[in-house]
């Protein structure tokens, strides 16, 4: 705390514009004090005003600093986001490829002919969800074909045996032909 004599001296130098910034600060600090001699009270508003102004400026400086900090933070965030964007892009590509693969699988499942244990029964244009009925009807149809083919097989077997009989008869015919020829030659002799 500056003494009163020093302050009077500094004030004289202040009005002569000879003080340094530090000396002016000493004067302002002095006038913040409540115990000021009456003859110097007239200067109090002046230096306090300066002090308040400086304080306000300091505060705005702080605010500015705060704002700049905020700005820096935002810039940092933005840059971090910018740095992270390839990752985000990579992740989205990964999901996109997965989604594409899934949709392709569904598409293939829907479009390609069904494989595996599939069964469909449609009666009068309506899907009937009855496996036993479907298999029973299919079995009836297959049996009908198999029975007709069975008759065909019997006929073909009969034809085969007939042709075998024909073969056997043809050899008998050739024997009888040879015998007939011999009889004729004997007759001629």
């Amino acid at each position: 705390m500056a003494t009163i004599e020093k302050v009077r001296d500094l004030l004289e130098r202040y009005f002569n514009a000879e003080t340094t910034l530090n000396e002016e600060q000493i004067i302002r600090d002095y006038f913040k004090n409540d115990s000021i001699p009456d003859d110097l009270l007239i200067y109090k508003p002046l230096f306090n005003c300066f002090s308040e102004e400086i304080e306000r400026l300091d505060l705005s400086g702080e605010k500015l600093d705060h704002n700049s900090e905020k700005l820096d933070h935002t810039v940092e965030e933005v840059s971090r986001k910018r740095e992270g964007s390839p990752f985000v892009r990579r992740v989205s590509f990964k999901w996109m490829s997965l989604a594409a693969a899934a949709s392709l699988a569904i598409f293939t499942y829907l479009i390609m002919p069904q494989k595996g244990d599939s069964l469909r029964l449609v009666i009068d244009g309506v899907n009937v969800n009855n496996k036993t009925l479907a298999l029973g009807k299919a079995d009836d149809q297959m049996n009908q074909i198999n029975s007709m083919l069975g008759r065909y097989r019997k006929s073909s077997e009969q034809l085969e045996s007939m042709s075998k009989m024909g073969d056997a008869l043809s050899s008998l015919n050739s024997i009888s032909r040879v015998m007939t020829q011999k009889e004729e030659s004997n007759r001629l002799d």
Partner: protein
Amino acid sequence: MKRLLILMFVAIILPAAALGQTKQINEILDKYEKKKSVESIVISPSLLQIAGTSDVNASTKELLSKIKELRIINIKTSAMESGVPLWTSLKGELEKHTSSDLFTRIVRIQDGEELLEMFITKNTEGALLFYTTTPKEFSVISIFGSIDKTVINAAMSGGIKIK
């Protein structure tokens, strides 16, 4: 060079045409299964079995692996559409394909009022079709897949059955 081109043409175009025929037959069956008085059954090979084999051995598995699908369409002969019996319309549409050069009729059995006809695609990858006509109903039994000698023999001997 010309021969090579012809061979390439035969190798590429004929299987494609046969597959096209199979697709068209499937489309016809799809169309008719939506109609009234029509029954349609589609069965995957896992629900089929080969007669005489209680267990699934390697040869049965191999035979069934050649079959992609068995499809049956059954129409009552009394069913009419626009004054025309529905079964004749279906048979007419199918015969447009089965009477083409890509199919061969291998069996025709007429037994009284019952008629059985069997067609196969000339190409192995295709279809085997049975048409059965009785006074009560007309049925189409189609087997799609790799229709080679073993499948034809199994079908002819009544070997393909439902489980």
